[in-house]
């Protein structure tokens, strides 16, 4: 059973890009475009999840906050993938979570997320995948 990376992103092209990159690293990608889809995936696959990459703004003022709470509860590490953290509401800023600033190459994002989850150097993770 491959390890999984949960990807939450409301922009389909970015989501697809991240999905390919996750596969390159030898991980299965679970993709969600909304917080509720992500929460469903967590319910079904929590045991296999190595890490989650979460877009913060999900359109119409919605954020990934509920997903971060659930991941925290289950002890699954996550990183935020966002253009501008200042824009977000207090709630999200107070998470004080690991952040990768957009735009970043998809393989960098996935590499950093896996490295963060495993507590390793991002360069080492990438080499292991190649």
């Amino acid at each position, binding site marked *: 059973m491959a390890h999984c990376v949960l990807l939450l992103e409301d*922009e389909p*092209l*970015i*989501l*697809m*890009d991240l999905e*390919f*990159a996750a596969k390159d690293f030898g991980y299965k990608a679970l993709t969600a475009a909304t917080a509720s889809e992500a929460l469903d995936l967590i319910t079904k696959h929590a045991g296999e999840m190595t890490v989650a990459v979460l877009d913060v703004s999900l359109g119409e003022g919605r954020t990934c906050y509920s997903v971060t709470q659930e991941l925290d509860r289950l002890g699954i590490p996550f990183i935020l993938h966002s*253009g*501008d953290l*200042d*824009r977000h509401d207090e709630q999200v800023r107070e998470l004080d979570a690991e952040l990768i*600033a*957009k*735009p*970043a*190459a*998809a393989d960098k994002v996935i590499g950093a997320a896996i490295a963060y989850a495993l507590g390793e150097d991002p360069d080492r993770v990438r080499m292991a995948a190649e």
Partner: protein
Amino acid sequence: MSTDDESIPNRSNQAAMRFDDAPERFRSGHRSAQFSGASGVLFEQAMAQTRMAICLCDPNQADLPIVFANRAFRRLTGYSEEETVGRNCRFLQGPKTDPEPVARIREAIANEDVVVVELLNYRKNGTTFWNALHLGPIYNDQGKLVYFFGSQWDVSDVRAARAEERHAKEMARELSHRMKNMFAVISGIVNVTGRVRGIQSEAAEINARIQALGRAYETTLDDASSGSIDIGEAIRAVLMPYDRDSERLLLTGNGVRMPFTVISIVGLVLHELAANATKHGAWSSETGQVSVDWRPSEDGSTLVIVWSEQGGPPVDAEAIVAGTGTAIVERLLATARGAIERDWSENGLTVTITVPARSAG
């Protein structure tokens, strides 16, 4: 004795200011030590000439009436001296005046404090202005409270400018966010297309260039309206991902403002040099260093960037020239009427790039 006509040209009017007799009249009605003698004459002249609207209120009379208002006060409010003296300052307030600053004024008067507030006031003709009011107590030699001193300044323009600036900042931030998102989507398109067509490494190469451009553009948003950019910030942003620790990259240039048009060229050229340094040059070894300097040419018509590599492996000129990145840089600079000179010494590669800095307009 009525309000001063603002249509009178300033210069002749300034001379006439000396004949504002309100201070004199006030002084003759308030014969006390403070306003007699030389200081009294100074008071008279200063009050008459200052462009700051000033009034004095008497705390020893019922309802703190204005006992003195200078010419600038009358000009600002549109009320004559007769219409002003004897009234409480609140006659300048109106329906849209916020009660909060008014309450602060009241509190300051009660505590004999100094207060500075901004409040909406009304002129005689009904028009409004934002009044930056400074109010404070004045004591005599015996420490007895004799006046409240009020100075008012029309800050309507300042407030409008502040609001505009806030709006501009919000717009810049929104723009910045959308631009980042746009670059992220473009990256996605390139990568996904590369996958589908089986040209992943080409796609990755294109993407690296797009990302470098994105980083360079990002730094230009803060003062987008000025038309020029701080090229140092753009250079720093483009090279940031290569700067794993401060030992590897040394930026020695200072903040040089350049027209916006140089940004794409600078972004792409530096990206290619950095990519080459990583593959073949100084950054392919652990101890290699790159220093980057930039300055405008003497006459300001070009931007000169000097890229120097030290401590890398022995230079293999062939390997560097062969890359597609090199071809792109050459073409780009030739098209822009710029220049690139490469100099391979024993220590490493030194590249001097000249970019024309004529603004597009």
